[in-house]
């Protein structure tokens, strides 16, 4: 057993877990944060993407013990609580989901992608950057549209914040 101590969605969490516990299982089963999904057993699908210390990672390919000391944000913690995060809003407005299973991972990957591309995104970049996220409904078209819309909305939001 390992004692792990993390900040998850702004909350300090301490627990003793089996060393083999994957971060995704820790989030889902110990903390009840079931928004993060497990879609495959092979580290390919990206349904489990969360942010660890500000970077998108596959939480199914990291031990909870490896993440000890880190700050984790899951889909539940993305919005500040007053409404949807701009990426969530864009997925809603653009119907960026079909069955919804891949959506949490897509949104966490998209948020990370937008943060890493402050210069803005184009369709080719979004499609290339989605390499690690699989939508088995093949609903990529609207996912890409959602991410482009979110990227623009967030750039405008920043512009306003600067002006203010």
């Amino acid at each position, binding site marked *: 057993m390992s004692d792990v101590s993390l900040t998850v969605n702004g909350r300090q969490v301490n627990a003793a877990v089996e060393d083999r516990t994957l971060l995704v299982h820790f989030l889902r089963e110990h903390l009840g944060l079931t928004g993060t999904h497990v879609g495959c057993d092979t580290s390919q699908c990206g349904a489990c*993407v969360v942010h660890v210390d500000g*970077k998108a*990672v596959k939480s199914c*390919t990291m031990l909870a013990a490896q993440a*000890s000391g880190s700050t984790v944000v899951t889909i539940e913690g993305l919005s500040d609580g007053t409404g949807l995060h701009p990426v969530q809003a864009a997925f809603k407005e653009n119907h960026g989901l079909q069955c919804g299973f891949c959506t949490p991972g897509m949104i966490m*990957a998209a948020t*990370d992608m937008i943060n890493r591309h402050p210069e803005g995104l184009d369709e080719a970049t979004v499609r290339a950057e989605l*390499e*690690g996220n699989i939508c088995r409904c093949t609903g990529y078209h609207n996912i890409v549209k959602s991410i482009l819309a979110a990227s623009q909305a967030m750039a405008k939001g920043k512009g306003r914040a600067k002006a203010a």
Partner: protein
Amino acid sequence: MYSVTYHRAASLSDAAKLAKKDEAKFLSGGMTLIPAMKTRLAAPPDVIDLTHIAELKGITVSGKSVTIGAATTHAEVANNAKLKAACPAICHLASHIGDPHVRHRGTIGGSIANNDPAADYPAALLALDATIVTTKRELAAEKFFKGLFETALKDGEIVKAVRFTVPAKAGYAKFPNPASRYAMTGVFVASGKEGVRAAVTGAGDDGVFRSRPIEAALARNFEAAALEGVSVPSDGLMSDLHASAEYRANLVVVMAKRAVMAATG
């Protein structure tokens, strides 16, 4: 996953002590080891996390000399401004490993210690004539990469860094497997004072190798056109459901041309 005991090494000496445990495995980014443990293809009783050892991290560019710490992630290599200015080919290579999430965790030291026959970095380090710095010695990439998933590393020996001299020109091109993004064939070419080196990954039956016909043609003229009509033998190349050895032999030439174009572009 079978039961495992996780250890976080605070220093290299700490890691060396922990490595005395039977069958213990070093864990870097875990992008290969953790999936292998999940599917029970690997079942080490102990894993020793190396990613919190400060001296294994970071990129130094000093004149023409580049040193990349073993625990430096692919994303860090891809986006390092100084490295991009000195040797953009290795940044380009790093930016095409796996996917963004993998690049945030996977490390150069982990990749070369694993020596997957389709991994990208071994081709770069072999073509750049890089030196691999370990806790015990320094050795040339040529001596380090031994075969399929096999390196010169001894038990308990840890890759600390890789070091190379920036070549005049370098380029990398790969034909990625559409599912995994591992190289079905990838070629890294480097041209400098010491001549031309071309290393091939993803194609060899026994892991990364230097292609002499490609090197000979490019030594005469470091242009893609110099590779017109050059063919490489398919002996010793991999055949699998993705591509036959003959197809890969052709890909070696095509990727070499693209790599040279990237290098001279």
